[in-house]
């Protein structure tokens, strides 16, 4: 697993809830059915208001994003327990989200699925960073570098190896918590 993730930023504000990440009408898609997993990616963050987010996370007609790094404020992922939320982001090609804080179930679902890294920033970044800027996220160093400026991130702690492994099951097998198949 590379410890460097690099790409364009997509910047959101506080309280981006699971209905904005994946609106309820798309929950008829079952994430473990491969073609429905792909479709979920195409709807990622479609619930964000157009007025506040004229640059869309997924361009019309696309299934993948050109923004692998998400930036947000407080309480990212609040609301429902739908695992469709981190899955839609991961299926779209997002690799990490860097927010001031997370809702509990969303954070846990990121770790369990291994879809993306939910990282806390040391200070609020969503007021200063802009969508489209290029960021270089160094997981080992705990930094995000944007246009030469270094932003400190909080360590992921025990969640990191689980996501590195590819989620709860792969981690549990690797560590003999459940039998290896």
């Amino acid at each position: 697993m590379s410890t460097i993730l690099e790409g364009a930023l997509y910047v959101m504000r506080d309280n981006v809830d699971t209905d904005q990440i994946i609106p309820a009408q798309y929950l008829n898609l079952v994430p473990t059915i491969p073609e429905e997993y792909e479709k979920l990616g195409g709807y990622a963050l479609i619930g964000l208001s157009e007025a506040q987010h004229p640059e869309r996370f997924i361009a019309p007609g696309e299934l993948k994003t050109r923004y692998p790094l998400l930036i947000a404020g407080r309480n990212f992922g609040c609301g429902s327990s739908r695992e469709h939320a981190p899955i839609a982001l991961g299926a779209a090609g997002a690799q990490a989200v860097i927010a001031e804080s997370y809702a509990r179930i969303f954070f846990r679902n990121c770790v369990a699925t291994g879809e993306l890294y939910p990282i806390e920033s040391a200070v609020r970044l969503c007021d200063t960073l802009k969508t489209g800027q290029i960021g270089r996220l160094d997981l080992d160093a705990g930094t995000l570098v944007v246009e030469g400026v270094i932003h400190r991130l909080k360590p992921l702690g025990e969640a990191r190896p689980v996501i590195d492994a590819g989620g709860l099951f792969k981690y549990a097998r690797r560590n003999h918590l459940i039998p290896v198949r």
Partner: protein
Amino acid sequence: MTLTEKLLARAGGKMRVAPGENVWVQVDVLMTHDVCGPGTIGVFHREFGRDAKVWDASRIVIIPDHYIFTADSRSNRNVDLLREFVREQGIRWFYDVIDDPKSVWKFDAAKGQLKRQYGDAFAGVCHTALAAKGHTRPGEVLLGTDSHTCMAGAFNLFATGIGNTDAGFVMGTGKLLLKVPETMRFRLEGALPFGVMAKDAILHVIGEIGFDGATYRAMQFDGEGARSLSMDDRMTIANMAIEAGGKNGIFEFDAKTKAYVDARIRANGTRAAYEPVEADREQKFVYDKTFDLSKIEPTVAKHPDPGQRALARDCGDIALDRAYIGSCTGGKASDFLAFARVVKGKRVKIDTFGVPATPEVVRELQVFQMDGKSAWRVLEEAGVRMTENASCAACLGGPEDTFGRLNRPMNCITATNRNFPGRMGHKDSKVYLASPYTVAASALTGRITDPREHLPSS
């Protein structure tokens, strides 16, 4: 230890646990539904094998309830996927939409939304159904693939929502690694005054701590005020722990809990033995505050989140297009009867939709008499569009043909539990959360209205 710590210690086979500690917990009940069930089953099969058996078929409860009364074929298919898994695994507690296990579910849009389209096994909204069908045994650990699973905390359980992957893990092993949360204590005193409901109390509390104020924490409601509340009231409050970001909400066990639980276990023949937990004399709280229920007034949470607290009487300038009563939080018989008391003999001024949480609620309303008329009739005559098709319906939007869904931008007042942008359908709608009394009074006037002047005084 607090109630939550004692429950997790017991389920983890430990004498003591402390907040922050990770504990492998033995799960008593795993609940899933049509929106997250097929994905959970997919994870289970992928990880444990196509021929694997669940850890204990008697401890899995499957309740289709979210996208049921819709012509969306993928949603109908998801109910069929649940039925297939139930047959394969020999799961007993499956509250299917249809009674013939060999058939498939198809909603008939031509028959309309109002008349019953389910069989005898159907149980309606999962959290209300879990309680109504005797699956909420005090002292147990109940996990569900739905954030409002915390409602079962009303019955002295540790209950919380989990994702598909965690639920797939539980299906195969019966265990899950859980972090012991810190406990926030809400000591309730007094009793709810005239015109005020449990919904007002929890909206008041969420406004107090903020809608991420309990993130990663347990919310413990105790004191004589908590004991004064009915089980329906406690369910409303525990349900909304998640709207403050809480991991779980929990109440003490008392004679009311016992009476409610024992009657339902008997009626449905679920496992009868249970052992409630009591808090220790020594409890450590990260927050400890007393709330006087008698001082609470009709409260709303304004757009766009459950923490935007305001008093109903200060919101008279907000014009409404729609009113809605239903969901796990607000679709119980007591909620509809409160609503009916306000609208009896009057007419609503805006489109008003009523979706009972369970078929049992439908029956109760059709039988319960108010001055010689059934409560159901009273509601219909007041202009409420009542459906017999108990389900989550428009509380979470759902497919476009969902009953009551906000398909264009509008202002809606609702007895449900969540009002993030887009929650009930259109993302440019504004949703206001309130008690059934306040929703009813507001339906009569077309503006957010304090219900106290619209209620008969006795």
